């Protein structure tokens, strides 16, 4: 695996951006995290620009989901900083907020869709109630407005709104993911985090969910971070890709470059295994 390194493949160092005028929506620097004696993340940097979809690939244990949990402020690292381009928050390292501030920031500005709907939804409450809960946390109290906003959000996620009073327990896997998505986008988050959103769904249902995500991305330019071990999903969705292995970023680039001209031995192995 280490016979050739990245430096051998290209002698060219990437320049900082000149044409991209927007500031990054999300910036993480030097993230390190240990679980017991195991290094889950070592000195990881990540940058996502407004409207971009960043794909993170890697095998189980590569640290990709741990990194996503950090982005969702569910966990804090031993070292590193995290900034989101939110008005009034540009200069604050979000990891240094107390847990109440973190929770309210997460509720208002970060949306997440988990692989397992049980993590994101109250399975016994109605679908509209699940979405409205997110709005309640943000201080909305008027019942008619809550219901209307929940309906709009479910509709945007291509959930059949006539079923908005069904509980997730009564819905199929693909529909549960749409409820999670509606909840995640209800407050127009700064960043939408997707943790294996289509893993475990039938191929046809998977295509429908990806299509919805693609449409949301196109029509609303939502900034997304998508974690998946499925290269097909990443290829369909991502603008840029970060390849992780054993807690390190081994390579990153434009999605077509990662798939057509992978530089690192590990990425080549990964891409060749797929094709």
């Amino acid at each position, binding site marked *: 695996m280490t016979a050739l390194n990245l430096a051998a493949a290209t002698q060219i160092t*990437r320049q900082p951006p000149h*044409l991209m005028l927007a500031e990054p929506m999300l910036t993480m620097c030097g993230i390190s995290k240990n679980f017991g004696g195991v290094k889950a993340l070592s000195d990881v940097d990540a940058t996502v620009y407004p409207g971009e979809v960043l794909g993170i690939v890697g095998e189980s244990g590569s640290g990709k989901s741990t990194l996503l949990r950090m982005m969702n402020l569910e966990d804090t690292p031993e070292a590193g900083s995290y900034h989101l381009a939110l008005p009034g928050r540009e200069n604050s390292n979000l990891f240094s907020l107390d847990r109440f501030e973190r929770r309210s920031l997460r509720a208002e500005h970060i949306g997440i869709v988990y692989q397992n709907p049980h993590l994101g939804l109250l399975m016994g409450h109605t679908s509209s109630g699940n979405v409205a809960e997110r709005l309640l946390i943000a201080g909305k109290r008027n019942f008619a407005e809550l219901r209307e906003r929940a309906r709009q959000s479910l509709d945007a996620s291509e959930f059949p709104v006539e079923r908005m009073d069904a509980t997730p327990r009564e819905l199929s896997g693909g529909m549960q993911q749409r409820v999670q998505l509606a909840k995640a986008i209800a407050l127009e988050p700064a960043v939408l985090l997707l943790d294996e959103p289509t893993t475990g769904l039938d191929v046809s249902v998977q295509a429908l969910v990806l299509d919805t995500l693609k449409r949301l991305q196109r029509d609303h330019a939502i900034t997304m971070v998508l974690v998946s071990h499925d290269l097909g999903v990443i290829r369909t969705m991502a603008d840029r890709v970060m390849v992780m292995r054993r807690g390190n970023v081994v390579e990153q680039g434009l999605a077509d470059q990662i798939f057509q001209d992978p530089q690192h031995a590990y990425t080549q192995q990964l891409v060749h295994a797929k094709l």
Partner: protein
Amino acid sequence: MNIEVSIPKTPAPVLRVEGLTKQFEMHHLKRTLFAFDNIDFELHEGEFILLRGENGAGKSTLLRTLYRSYLPRAGHAYYHTREGVIDLASAADVDIAVLRRREIGFVTQFLNARPRVAAEEVVAEPLRLAGTPHAEALVEARRWLSAFGVKKQLWAAYPSTFSGGEQQKVNLARALILPQRLLLLDEPTASLDRDSRKALVERLTQLKASGVAMIGVFHHPEDVAGLIDQEIALKAIKIEDQ
């Protein structure tokens, strides 16, 4: 086909390539595949370069390297943008993404068809990403599909089910709907019938006249004989064991 292209007249070349070198490190074989070495050329506004060479000489590889689907090993590709000069060989990924949305187009023989997206939506997408309202973008997309001879019954169908030739027409319509400043053409006529080839050459002639710079690989170079300003011949380089 009445999209106007407005490009500032500048004496500097659109693209100046210096010492551009590409090789592939194939880690699992412990081998290096040399694609092309030390290429230099200049391309000005409204110029058309034809790349020549046998199969495997690196023609498509050069186009993909300029588009940055491939990373060069060494060298420079200075591209003059409205904001100044940027080296495509080393520019940040997000800058390349900006240029691809705005002014550098790539036309291939293959369409990467996304499931469940109608042909007209595929073609309209570049316009929509550039801010054109949906309805307007669709009208334009249909006009282009029609210009390339895609039958009306297919406009709302999914291209993933189309024949190779029909897919390519969708691809061409998509690639040429937005006026670009630099067009990279990778065998755009490969599986087209005569009428669509004619429509394509007409459009390329029109683009050239309006100042678009182009580099292309053509299976039948005689199709574009009237457009060629420069020819660059590439030769295959041998594979060396490490």
